[in-house]
């Protein structure tokens, strides 16, 4: 983005942002991003964004968790082959509880990894041209244009 000039419009109303985004398409300015204090469906719909991929991370985590939970319970039981309460060494019904809890745990780990990688956090230095008012009561629309 070297050499480009940036301008940010600050608005207090998300409807104004939506109309600005529509109007921006008709100009020579290149839309960069919108900062907002809340997740705005109107803005997201206007930008016509693709569906987030976080869910795939969550799904992979969940599947790995289910396998890991059962694997752990089965491994431990086979290492200590003692029949307890007349149940088989590998008892799938009680092990389902371990599998279930691990599914949730690993799905959440996957979800967190998905969130961090997709939102590109942590980024302690922040973003260039960010205005702190955008976490308060303003919506900020950032646009760029080529220098004259």
């Amino acid at each position: 983005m070297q050499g480009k000039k940036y301008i940010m419009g600050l608005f207090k109303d998300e409807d104004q942002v939506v109309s600005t985004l529509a109007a921006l398409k008709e100009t020579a300015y290149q839309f960069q991003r919108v900062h907002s204090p809340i997740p705005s469906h109107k803005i997201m719909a206007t930008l016509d964004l693709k569906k987030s991929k976080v869910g795939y991370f969550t799904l992979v985590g969940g599947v790995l968790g289910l396998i890991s939970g059962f694997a752990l319970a089965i491994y431990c039981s086979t290492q200590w082959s003692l029949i307890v309460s007349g149940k088989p060494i590998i008892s799938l019904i009680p092990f389902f509880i371990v599998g279930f809890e691990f599914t949730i745990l690993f799905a959440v780990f996957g979800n967190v990894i998905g969130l961090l990688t997709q939102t590109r956090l942590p980024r302690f230095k922040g973003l260039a041209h960010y205005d702190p008012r955008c976490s308060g009561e303003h919506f900020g629309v950032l646009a760029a244009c080529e220098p004259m």
Partner: protein
Amino acid sequence: MPQLTYASIDQTVLDTLSPAKKYYWAIVAVLLLGVLVGAACWIYQIFVGIGVGGQNNPVAWGTYLINFVFWVGIAHSGTLISAILHLFRAGWRNPIARAAETMTVFAVCIAGLFPFIHLGRVWQVYYMLPLPNQRLLWPNFLSPLMFDVIAISTYLTVSTLFWYTGLLPDLAAVRDRSQGTRKKIFNFLSMGWTGAHDQWRHYTRGYLFFAALATPLVISVHSVVSWDFALGITPGWHTTIFAPYFVAGAIHSGLAMVLTLMIPMRKIFKYEKIITNDVLENVAKTILFTGLIVGFAYATEFFIAWYSHNIVEMESFRWRAMGDYRLEFFIMVVCNTILPLLFLFKNIRRTIPLLFGISLFVNLGMWYERFVIIIGGVAHGFSPHAWGLYRPTGIEYGILIGSFCLFFSLFLLFAKHLPSVSITEMKETLEHGGSHAG
């Protein structure tokens, strides 16, 4: 909420983070003293032995496990409010969601301490971990106690991550209105969140998945806790209704604790415009609903005992209502099922001192519910020659007081140093009436 604006929400919440006055630190110091009392009692028990508690033969499970179940129960309403009501798009949960989630995290941490305390030889806790070892011993995953280890540690991890994820945009809001060291700290904590549209796009999906995963988890956790009892053959414990009964009871006690915490916080932080009477009334209505479920469960237990024609079960429940612990049983029934019926009246639901008072009674009643179930089961089992009684000792009361002081001191520290109301979700309530809809 016509009187609220984005700016007024920011201002109200940020005002709560202003430097604390002396009396705040005095209260924290008193609570920390209580924590020291609890810690001293535990240390004494470690040096002298588990016999300093009142546990005996046959009542080997005493207050430590009562406290464990009580604190896990307290935790549950936080997840109900943050996850389940989020999925139902109940906008009224937004003002209290943050504080309730925080309550969940602290309550699970404290609950997690009690199995350690109950172990006696706490240094042997690693026996429960599936680690290769010289003893060639491995955890038995057929045991409900091992289910519990997995469920509680999963719950603590998930609720902490869920809480922190919800906090992220608010930490950025505080960062952007801070200077100096505080700005640096909040910049680190907020991980550089900027609220860019692409971040929100992923965040709303991720938050939705969090809620969708936390919902079955919370139900499973207290079901697993109930199976610690129900999978045993002890009379009074061995019943299939325990899982739903425990989950309803957990939410009942947790919602009462929400009122106990929210009402003073609302007054002190001048949150009246945010945590409105309508919000508190909705919590009261939910307590009324869970109280009816709990009351139905109490009655069902007696019905099952009578209908089974099992003389041991029948004796167990006769003794529960008319035996040595009839006072505890009476406290349980009155506080958990009869007093919440007062919430049928709208003027009681909207009278703050009454809401607060009833919430305290429900907390008390739910502690006694666990007393009646846990102690009552093992004290009066199959063989009359093995019947026995139990009373907590001073050491156990010391640890109980320490746990309450730890909970309240952690909550006080949180309320003064982090946004105790979700700024983002309150703004969303103004805009959409919902929250983080993915």
